[in-house]
C-alpha cells in the first residue's frame, strides 16, 4: 500500500490510533463497578437482631466444637489452611485446603484437602489434590514448591483454587497459579486443572503470593487479596470476574512492609484491608477504599498488636470478625475479636493461649449453616478447627435460669 502524501500517512496513523482509543473508552464505559456481595453483610446472621451494635449486644459467640482436621497418613507438617463454604445442595458443607509435606518448602509439599460432611459433621479422609509435578506438567514449566492455597466458589458454583508456586528461589519467587475444579469422576472426585499463572509482574512474573480469603462481589466475581514480597512488601487487590478471569490489579498500600491483606466490606463500595506488618511496628495495619477498590489509601494502624502474622476476617450477621495473634512477638496466642466499624475491635474469645514457643497461626474463617468455623495451623503439624454458634441474649438468659 503506497501513501505518497504525508497528510494521508498522518491521517492513517491517527485514524487507527483513534479507533483503538475509542475502543478503550467503550471498554471502560461498560466496566461494572465492583460492589461487595450483599450476602457478605448478612451471611451467617443467626439471630433476628439488626446488624451492628445491637446485634453485638444481643448475644455472643459460643464455642460448640473443636478438633483437628485429619492429616494425610505419614505427613508431619501442615500450614496455611483455607476454607470455602459449598452450596447447601452439596453433600459437603465445607472444604478445607492446606499445604502439607515433610516441612514448609519441602520438595514433597502438596495441597491437601478434606471435606466436611453436611449430615454427619465429620471431616473426610484427607487427600492430596494438587502436587507440583502435575501443575508443572500442565503449565509446561517447572515448579519448585507449592504453598498458601486460597479457595473460592464462583457464581456458577465452581470451586477455584489459587496456590503459590515458586520458581527459582524461595517464597519471594512465588507466582499465583489459578486452578479450577474439573468435572468430578468416581476415580478423581477432586481433580484440578491449571487454568493459568496470573500475570502480575513484569519481572518474570515473580514474587506475587496469595494467602487470605477473597471478597465476593455482587456480580459473581471477587477481589483476591495478594502481595508482593521481593525486598519490598506491598499488598494488591486483584479483581476477577464471575468466571475467574483477571480483570484488574490495584495497589492497596504504598508502605513497603505490608503483606497478606484481609478484606472486610463495610458497605458495597467501602472496604477495609487489614494487613500483616513485615516491619518492626508489631501492629495490624489498615488501608481503605471507598470506591470499590478503584483507589486504596493507607488508613493508619489498628490498636491491635500483631507479631508479623497472618490474620483472617469475615462479616457475619452485621458483625465484622477478626482472628489474629494478639502479641508483638510470638504466635502462641490466637484471639477472635469483633467490630462494627472495622476500626474499633472488642476481644471475644482466646482460641488458643499456649506457652511461649508454641505456634497457632494463619487462621481462616467460614460460615456454614449459620455457624462460624475457624481453622488455623497448630504447631505447623496439623490444622485445628473450632466451631461457634451465635447464642442470642434471651436464649442465654433462659438457659442460665433453667435447672
Amino acid at each position, binding site marked *: 500500500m503506497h*501513501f505518497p502524501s*504525508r497528510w494521508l*500517512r*498522518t491521517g492513517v*496513523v491517527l485514524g*487507527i*490510533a483513534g*479507533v*483503538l*482509543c475509542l*475502543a*478503550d473508552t*467503550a*471498554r471502560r464505559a*461498560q*466496566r*461494572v463497578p465492583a460492589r461487595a456481595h450483599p450476602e457478605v453483610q448478612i451471611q451467617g446472621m443467626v439471630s433476628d437482631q439488626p446488624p451492628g451494635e445491637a446485634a453485638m449486644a444481643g448475644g455472643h459467640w459460643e464455642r460448640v466444637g473443636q478438633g483437628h482436621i485429619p492429616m494425610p497418613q505419614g505427613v508431619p507438617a501442615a500450614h496455611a489452611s483455607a476454607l470455602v463454604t459449598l452450596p447447601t445442595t452439596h453433600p459437603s458443607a465445607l472444604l478445607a485446603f492446606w499445604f502439607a509435606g515433610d516441612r514448609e518448602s519441602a520438595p514433597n509439599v502438596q495441597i491437601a484437602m478434606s471435606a466436611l460432611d453436611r449430615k454427619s459433621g465429620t471431616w473426610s479422609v484427607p487427600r492430596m489434590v494438587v502436587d507440583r509435578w502435575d501443575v*508443572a*506438567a500442565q*503449565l*509446561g*514449566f*517447572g*515448579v*519448585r514448591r507449592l504453598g498458601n492455597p486460597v479457595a473460592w466458589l464462583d457464581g456458577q458454583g465452581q470451586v477455584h483454587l489459587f496456590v503459590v508456586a515458586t*520458581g*527459582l528461589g524461595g517464597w519471594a519467587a512465588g507466582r499465583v497459579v489459578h486452578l479450577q475444579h474439573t468435572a468430578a469422576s468416581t476415580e478423581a472426585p477432586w481433580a484440578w486443572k*491449571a*487454568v*493459568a*499463572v496470573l*500475570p*502480575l*509482574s*513484569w*519481572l*518474570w*512474573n515473580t514474587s506475587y503470593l496469595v494467602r487470605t480469603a477473597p471478597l465476593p462481589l455482587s456480580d459473581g466475581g471477587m477481589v483476591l487479596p495478594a502481595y*508482593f514480597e*521481593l*525486598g*519490598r512488601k*506491598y499488598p494488591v487487590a486483584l479483581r476477577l*470476574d464471575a468466571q475467574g*478471569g*483477571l*480483570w*484488574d*490489579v*490495584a*495497589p492497596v498500600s*504504598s508502605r*513497603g512492609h505490608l503483606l497478606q491483606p484481609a478484606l472486610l466490606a463495610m458497605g458495597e463500595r467501602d472496604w477495609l484491608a487489614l494487613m500483616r506488618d513485615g516491619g518492626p511496628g508489631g501492629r495490624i495495619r489498615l488501608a481503605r477504599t471507598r470506591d470499590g477498590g478503584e483507589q486504596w489509601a493507607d488508613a493508619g494502624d489498628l490498636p491491635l498488636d500483631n507479631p508479623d502474622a497472618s490474620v483472617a476476617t469475615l462479616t457475619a450477621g452485621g458483625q465484622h470478625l477478626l482472628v489474629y495473634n494478639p502479641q508483638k512477638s510470638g504466635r502462641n496466642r490466637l484471639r477472635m475479636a469483633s467490630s462494627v466499624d472495622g476500626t474499633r475491635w472488642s476481644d471475644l474469645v482466646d482460641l488458643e493461649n499456649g506457652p511461649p514457643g508454641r505456634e497457632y497461626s494463619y487462621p481462616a474463617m467460614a460460615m456454614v449453616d449459620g455457624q462460624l468455623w475457624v481453622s488455623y495451623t497448630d504447631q505447623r503439624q496439623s490444622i485445628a478447627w473450632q466451631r461457634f454458634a451465635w447464642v442470642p441474649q434471651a436464649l442465654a438468659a433462659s438457659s442460665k435460669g433453667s435447672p
Partner: protein
Amino acid sequence: MNVADWPDWMRMVQAAAPLLPQPSFLPLLRQAGWALVLAALVSAALQGFGTHWIRDKAGLLALACALWAGVPGPWGLSYWLGLAFQTPSLMAMVLSLQYLWQRLTQRKWPQNVQTPGLAATQQPSPCWPCRYAVLGMVLGWLLLLDTFAYLALALYAWGFSPLAYALLFVLAIGPWVMAPGYLQTAPAPALLVVLAVFGLTRWPTGNVWDALLDPWLFVGLHIYLFARYRAHRGD
C-alpha cells in the same frame, strides 16, 4: 453471536476484562520462544570464537540447543528456563528469528538499511536502532520501578489496556509519517510484527509490556547501547 464466539481482535477492543492468551498454546510458545532465543544466542556467541572449526559448527550447535529447548517436559531446556524466567518476549523471539534468518542467508545483521529510490533527506535516520534501544531501556527501568511499587501509577497493569496498545502502535508507526523509508529500518518491522502478533494472540501473557520487553532483553539493550557507545568513541 455470543461474545465468546467473537474473533480475538474483536474481543480485544470490546472486552470488559483484559484478554489473556489461550493457555493451551502457551507451553508450545514457551518452547518455540526459548528455542529461537537460545539458537540466536549460541550462534552469535560462537561467531566470536577464533577457530574455524567452532565457527563452522556454530549452526549445528545452535540447532542442537534449539531442539533441546523444544523438548517438552523436564528433559527440555524450556521447562527449566520457564521455571525461572517464564517466556521470552515476542520482541526477543522476533529479533532472534531475524538474526537467525540473516545468518542462514549469510547477510549482515542490518544496522541501517538505506532505501533505494529515496532522496537523502527522506532516508531514515541512521540512529533508529539506538533510539528504540534507548526507549526500550527507559521502559524497562520504569517497569522495574513499577514492579517494586516506586511509581504512583500501576504501569504494568496498564499494559493490559487497549489504550497502551494504541499508543505503542502510534510510537511504532508514527515515524513513518516523517520518513516512509522508516518501515524498512532494522527495529521497525520487528516492532510492527510484535504488535500485530500480540493483537491477534495476546502472547505471551496478555500484557503488551511482556510482549515488547522481557528482563533479559532489557539487560541486552544496555549491553547493545554500551557497545554502540564504545564504537562511537572509537574504543
